[in-house]
């Protein structure tokens, strides 16, 4: 059952009550009318009885009057000596008061029934006795109701001597009115209906009489009084109902309706809660007022809670958009602001500045993460101080920052960029224990007159940054059309190539550089090196990896490389039994998908007939942030049969520190360390030799890369290196020979 609103319920109640009142009023009205009608019937019957009684009295009166006249001496006198009959008839009878006033005429008839003297004029009795007396006949003459009454006249009551007859003509209405004071019957419209010209005895005339009923003024007055009272009562109740409805509406329905609306509004997520204006006015119903106060208190508390939540939300929102380390806006804020600006919107006087710290990995490796963090904070602080008041500084990740300058022409943007460089240069990095200052590269791009969208601006800034990162480039590069076409073409092709290669590992064209076992200088396995064949051009690693690192695509790219190597193993490009070394970046060693793919590859090769040696080279060890997970994953790889090599040992990315924590099998000396064997001073050479000795003594196999000459080879053989690789043994991809061949 659907619930009803209080307004509708009240309306139904009021309408029902109103209909009930009207119904009751109608019922009582009907009852009064029925009672009146019943009284009318009763009065009609009373009128009939009244007329019957009056008729009886009239007949009696006529008899008595006639008999009195018949017994009158002078009547007999006229019947015997009618000489003066006319005088007697016309004067004497009336003068003697022997005749009622309702008698219109009198006549005497002799014994034969003939009138004593014909009467002229009306009303008159007939000349002949119409029948045997006594006789009473009703007549209607000229609309007048008359009764002719005839009675025999005897000489003496006891003698029985008939002298003649007496005729009397009565006015029936007068006689009836004289006989009775009518309360019910209205004889003014008396009608006596007789069939044809028949005559009736007055005693039997009642059945033929039609007459009205007098209006009972008391009854009419009472009926009107009752009906007026009923009408007034009904109207009063209806007005009271309307008043009650008004009270109900204003004191109950509307407050409840408002309560309901408020509560419904609170249920709506989008509602602005709470407004509560309606509930500021006190209500007149005590219980509702209590509810109002409670609800108002609740609303106020809810408002406070809501405000608190909103503040928290704003705080959380702000915090979510802030970089915890530096306090500047983070990548998320950058993406949102970028989105809000509109990626396809044509920009006018907007400049995009990208900042990237130079050699930050080396700083981290050299001075530790805390110093690295301090450097990042210092860069953020310096950049923020160099920007204008309303400019936002975003940390996009690691050591990468950016800002979008609105209302900035190229000169202005360039000035701000230079001011950023100046601020950073002025910063004293020695306070962090650093011997050299940290530097940044800045790529600047701008759209002056709506010619670029944000995405296009981003690409240009990337290219500018790419250019700034190139050796011998200025630290701040503003994108320009002159230098941009080729660079942009290359850059765009490289970027596209990287993304396409990740989606399609078939684009990866792997080359394998031999790793020789020493001292016999025998090829033991090959190191897989990556190139991309895209649009007919071969993109080399020095173009690939900056993009991979800049786009944070390390894991995805390594996964594509593993699939490419598996492809080469499957199609025989890597001959069976040919060991292979695969480079994994720091993010990849802690990436489950990459590790799983690597383990699958190792397991497949371990069960393959003849098997092959799989070496996993972990690069940029310093960037590993989850050392425990990395160690666990390395342990799994080793347990599966793979060997693990620590790449770039001695560079900024790898140091002795990681040997203590990472379970590796091989240590691969960075080429820069080997350069020290040739160019370094004796002390540096000694340290290098001692480190090599120490690593070997610890049980690791030691790999030297970058061997280009025989002298270098001899030197490292002398130092005890177990493996070597470099152009001395051939350029990568020149040939892949079966095991045992050099």
């Amino acid at each position, binding site marked *: 059952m659907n619930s009803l609103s209080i307004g509708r319920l009240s309306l139904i109640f009021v309408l029902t009550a109103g209909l009930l009142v009207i119904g009751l009023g109608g019922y009582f009205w009907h009852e009064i009318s029925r009672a009146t009608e019943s009284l009318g019937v009763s009065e009609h019957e009373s009128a009939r009885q009244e007329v019957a009684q009056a008729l009886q009295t009239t007949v009696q009166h006529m008899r008595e009057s006639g008999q009195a006249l018949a017994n009158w001496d*002078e009547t007999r006198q006229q019947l015997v000596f009618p000489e003066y009959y006319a005088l007697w008839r016309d004067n004497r009878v009336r003068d003697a008061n022997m005749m009622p006033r309702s008698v219109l005429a009198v006549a005497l008839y002799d014994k034969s029934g003939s009138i004593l003297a014909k009467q002229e004029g009306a009303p008159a009795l007939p000349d002949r006795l119409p029948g045997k007396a006594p006789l009473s006949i009703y007549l209607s003459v000229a609309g007048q109701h008359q009764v002719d009454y005839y009675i025999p006249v005897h000489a003496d009551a006891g003698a029985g001597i008939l002298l003649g007859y007496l005729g009397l003509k009565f006015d029936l209405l007068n006689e009836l009115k004289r006989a009775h004071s009518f309360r019910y019957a209205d004889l003014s419209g008396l009608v006596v209906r007789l069939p044809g010209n028949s005559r009736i005895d007055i005693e039997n005339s009642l059945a033929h009489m039609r007459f009205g009923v007098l209006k009972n003024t008391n009854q009419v007055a009472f009926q009107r009084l009752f009906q007026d009272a009923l009408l007034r009562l009904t109207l009063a109740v209806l007005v009271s109902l309307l008043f009650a409805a008004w009270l109900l509406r204003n004191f109950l329905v509307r407050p409840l309706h408002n309560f309901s609306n408020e509560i419904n509004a609170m249920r709506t997520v989008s509602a602005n809660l709470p407004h509560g204006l309606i509930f500021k006015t006190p209500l007149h119903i005590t219980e509702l007022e209590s509810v109002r106060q409670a609800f108002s208190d609740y609303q106020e508390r809810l408002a406070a809670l809501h405000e608190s939540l909103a503040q928290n939300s704003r705080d959380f929102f702000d915090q979510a958009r802030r970089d915890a380390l530096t306090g500047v806006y983070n990548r998320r804020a950058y993406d949102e602001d970028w989105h809000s600006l509109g990626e396809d919107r044509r920009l006018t006087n907007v400049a995009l500045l990208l900042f990237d710290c130079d050699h930050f990995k080396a700083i981290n490796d050299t001075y530790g993460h805390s110093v690295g963090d301090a450097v990042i904070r210092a860069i953020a602080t310096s950049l923020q101080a160099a920007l204008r008041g309303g400019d936002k500084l975003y940390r996009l990740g690691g050591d990468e920052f950016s800002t979008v300058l609105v209302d900035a022409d190229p000169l202005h943007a360039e000035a701000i960029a230079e001011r950023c460089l100046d601020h950073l240069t002025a910063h004293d990095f020695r306070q962090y224990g650093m011997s050299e200052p940290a530097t940044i590269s800045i790529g600047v791009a701008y759209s002056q007159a709506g010619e670029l969208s944000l995405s296009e601006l981003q690409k240009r800034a990337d290219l500018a940054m790419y250019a700034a990162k190139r050796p011998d480039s200025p630290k701040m590069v503003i994108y320009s059309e002159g230098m941009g076409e080729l660079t942009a073409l290359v850059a765009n092709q490289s970027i596209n190539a990287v993304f396409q290669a990740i989606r399609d590992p078939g684009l990866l064209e792997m080359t394998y550089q031999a790793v020789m076992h020493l001292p016999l200088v025998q090829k033991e396995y090959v190191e897989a090196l990556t190139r991309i064949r895209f649009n007919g051009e071969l993109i080399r690693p020095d173009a690939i990896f900056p993009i991979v690192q800049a786009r944070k695509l390390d894991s995805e790219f390594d996964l594509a490389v593993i699939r490419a190597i598996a492809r080469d193993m499957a199609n025989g490009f890597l001959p069976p039994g040919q060991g292979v070394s695969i480079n994994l970046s720091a993010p990849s060693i802690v990436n489950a998908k990459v590790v799983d793919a690597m383990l699958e590859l190792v397991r497949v090769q371990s069960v393959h007939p003849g098997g092959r040696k799989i070496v996993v080279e972990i690069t940029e060890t310093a960037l590993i942030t989850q050392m425990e997970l990395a160690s666990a994953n390395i342990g799994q790889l080793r347990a599966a049969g793979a060997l693990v090599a620590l790449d770039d040992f001695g560079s900024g990315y790898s140091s002795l520190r990681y040997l203590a924590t990472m379970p590796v099998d091989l240590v691969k000396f960075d080429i820069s360390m080997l350069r020290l064997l040739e160019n370094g001073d004796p002390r540096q050479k000694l340290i290098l030799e001692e480190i090599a000795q120490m690593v070997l003594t610890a049980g690791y196999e030691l790999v030297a890369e970058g061997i280009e000459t025989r002298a270098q080879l001899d030197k490292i053989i002398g130092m005890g290196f177990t493996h070597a690789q470099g152009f001395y043994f051939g350029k990568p991809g020149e040939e892949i020979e079966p095991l045992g061949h050099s």
Partner: protein
Amino acid sequence: MVRWIFLALAAVAVSAFAEPVELQMPNKVVAKAEYRAGEAGKPTVLLMHGFLQTHEFPTIQRLADGLASAGYSVLAPTLTLGVTHRKQSLACEAIHTHTIGDGAKEIAQWVNWLKARNASSIVLVGHSFGSVETLVYMSAQRDPLVRKLIGVSAVEGRLKVDGAQREKVIEELRALVKKGDKKLFTQAFSFCPKYLATPQSMLSHLEWTPERILKTASHLPIPVVFIMGSKDDRIGVNWIDQLRKSRLKVRVIEGANHFMDGDFEFDLLDNVLLELKSL
């Protein structure tokens, strides 16, 4: 007191024996009367009522009762006055066509009726104008059985005018009668302020003047006695004196009025009885 009670009881007893009598007159009109039979040997009294009255008139009834109680046969007839079976006093305004002679004729019929009843002697007693009626009868149709006439409160048919005017009226009436004019006319007559009568009827009454009454009474061969009330206001102021002067026997009851009612009815009865005894 004892006497009154006795008489009252006797009256009731006698009246119970009053016999209604009807007698058809020569003109076919029936007259009514009341007859009380008395003791044999005693004269029969014929009581004649006054002007327009009947035998039911109280003075007549009381006197009849008293006489019957005394053992006299009493006949109290009602003159018809032209009304058959008349039993009511005839109203002054009624149409009067009867003459005083008509009444005398009816008295003669009743005398005959009494004679048929073997009345040995008859005494006529008239009250008021009834006295004149009996006198008229006696003057016209005297019967030998009638031995005495007693006039009680005897009075003439009086016009309420002086003598000269009365004569003038009479003359006019005579002229009308002579012309045969039967047109009714109204006249203040006797106790009637408006008496409606034919000229002949009226004239018959007016012609019996006091003088004619005295003269006629004086010349009757039978004793005539008048019993008058000293307080009778219906008679002329000197009527009693005129009666006395005419040597007629007059008995005056002191204090009695015209109707001899009250205690005077007994005085009347006593006087009548005295006259009867003296017959």
